C-alpha cells in the first residue's frame, strides 16, 4: 500500500569510481539502489529510513558474467533472469539457476540483482543458500581498494553485514565444481510461485573414492542470517557412501534440527521449520547416495 512518500534525492554516477567517491565523501549518507525490487517496496510505503539514493543501475562495470577455467564471476548487477538463462551456470552450478527461478516471477527476475539480494540482508532470500553451498566469495570495493570476503562471513547479524559504508559489492565469485558432484536445491513456501520461503536449502557434494569428500549445506529462513549447517556438514563429510544408511540419515536429521535457529513469524513456525528442514535433508541425502552409487 502507498504511504506518505518523503522527498528524496537520487544521484546517478556514470562510473564506478564516481559512485565510490560519493560513498567515501559522505559515509553512510547514500543508499545504493540497483534494480529497486526490495527498496522501492519500502520506499513507496514510506517506511524507508533513507532519502538519498545512489543509482547504480547504469554502471556497466558492475554487469556481466565472466568465466575462467576455474571460476564464474558474476557482476553485482547480474539479474536473476541472466542467471536463469546462462548455459554454463545451468550446467555446472544448477542450484544458482534454481534459486534465481524461484525468486519472484519474470518481472522481478528481470530487475532484481544478485548483489542486491545479498546486500539487502534478508535471511529469507533464496540465492544465499546456493552461494553458501558453492562456497562463494564477495568482492567489496572502496576508494581504498578491494577485498574478497568469503560469503559465509558476509552476514554478521539480522540485516547486518561486514560491508563498510564506503564499500560497494562489485562481483560475486563461485568456483567451478570438479570431479563427481551432486547438487540439491529445495525451497519450501506457501505456493510454488511468488511466495517467500519458509525454509530454503541448497547443498553441494563431491564424492571421491567412495567417500563424501566435500559437503556444504546452505540454508535460508532458519536463522537471523543465511547460514551453513556446519555440524550436519561435518557429520556427512568424510563418510563412506555405503555407510549413509537409514540410521545415519536419521542422525543427520536430528543434527540439523539442532544446527538451525528458526523462529515463529508470519510465514511459519520454528517447529515446522525444524521438521521440514530435517525432512528435506533426508530427501537430499537419499538422492545423493543414489546419485553417487550410480556413478
Amino acid at each position, binding site marked *: 500500500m502507498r504511504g506518505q512518500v518523503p522527498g528524496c534525492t*537520487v544521484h*546517478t554516477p556514470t562510473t564506478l569510481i564516481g559512485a565510490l567517491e560519493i560513498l567515501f565523501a559522505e559515509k553512510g549518507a547514500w543508499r545504493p539502489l540497483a534494480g529497486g525490487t526490495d527498496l*522501492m*517496496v519500502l520506499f*513507496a510505503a514510506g517506511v524507508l529510513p533513507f532519502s538519498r539514493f545512489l543509482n547504480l543501475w547504469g554502471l556497466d562495470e558492475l554487469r556481466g558474467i565472466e568465466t575462467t577455467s576455474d571460476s564464474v564471476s558474476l557482476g553485482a548487477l547480474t539479474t536473476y533472469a541472466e542467471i536463469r538463462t546462462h548455459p554454463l551456470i545451468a550446467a555446472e552450478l544448477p542450484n544458482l539457476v534454481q534459486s534465481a527461478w524461484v525468486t519472484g*516471477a*519474470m*518481472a*522481478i527476475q528481470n530487475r532484481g540483482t544478485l548483489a542486491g539480494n545479498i546486500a539487502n540482508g534478508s535471511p529469507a532470500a533464496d540465492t544465499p543458500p546456493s552461494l553458501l553451498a558453492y562456497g562463494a566469495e564477495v568482492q567489496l570495493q572502496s576508494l581504498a581498494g578491494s577485498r574478497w570476503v568469503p560469503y559465509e562471513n558476509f552476514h554478521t547479524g539480522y540485516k547486518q553485514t561486514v560491508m563498510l559504508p564506503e564499500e560497494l559489492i562489485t562481483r560475486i565469485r563461485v568456483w567451478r565444481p570438479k570431479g563427481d558432484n551432486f547438487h540439491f536445491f529445495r525451497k519450501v513456501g506457501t505456493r510454488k510461485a*511468488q511466495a517467500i520461503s519458509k525454509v530454503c536449502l541448497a547443498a553441494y557434494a563431491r564424492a571421491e573414492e567412495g567417500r563424501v569428500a566435500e559437503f556444504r549445506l546452505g540454508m535460508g529462513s532458519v536463522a537471523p542470517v543465511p547460514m551453513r549447517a556446519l555440524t550436519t556438514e561435518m557429520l556427512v563429510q568424510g563418510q563412506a557412501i555405503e555407510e549413509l544408511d537409514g540410521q545415519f540419515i536419521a542422525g543427520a536429521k536430528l543434527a540439523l534440527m539442532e544446527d538451525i535457529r528458526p523462529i515463529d513469524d508470519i510465514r511459519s513456525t520454528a517447529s515446522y521449520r525444524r521438521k521440514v528442514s530435517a525432512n528435506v535433508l533426508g530427501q537430499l541425502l537419499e538422492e545423493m547416495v543414489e546419485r553417487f552409487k550410480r556413478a
Partner: protein
Amino acid sequence: MARLLDVIREDLELTGTKEGCGEGECGACSVILNGKLVNSCLVPAVQAEGAELRTIEGVASDEQLHSVQESFLHCGGAQCGICTPGMVMAAVDLLKRCPHPDEAQIRDGLAGNLCRCTGYGKIVDSVAQAAERAIQVAEESRS
C-alpha cells in the same frame, strides 16, 4: 522518487496500466521496458530515462488487436479486467521468449500476475490459443 508507474499513468495519462498491490506481487502494472517485462511500480522512473517503453496501449497496431488480445476475447480470458493489461503484457513477453510454450511454461510466464476472478484456466487457454494461432499464421504465410 517517482515510480515508472506514476509517470505512465499520471504524466503520460496512459491509464491502461493498472496499480494493484504497488509492491511487485500482483503484476497489474506490468510493462515491457527495453524488451523486458517489469513491474512498473518497482522501477524508479529515473532508471527508465532514454529507454524504450511498451505499455498495453502499444500492443494492438491501429485497429488490429494483437493475437494475445484476440485470444483473450475468444476464450473469455478477462472478467473484471483489472489484471488483464498486465496479463496480456506477460503473455506477449512469454511468447516472444518462448513461442511454443507448454502449459507449465505458460504458468511460469504468468506466475507474477494475479487474477482473482478467472481461476486462471481460461487465461492459460488464451495464451495457448494465441501461440497456436501464431503458428498457423506463420504456416499460412509460408504456403
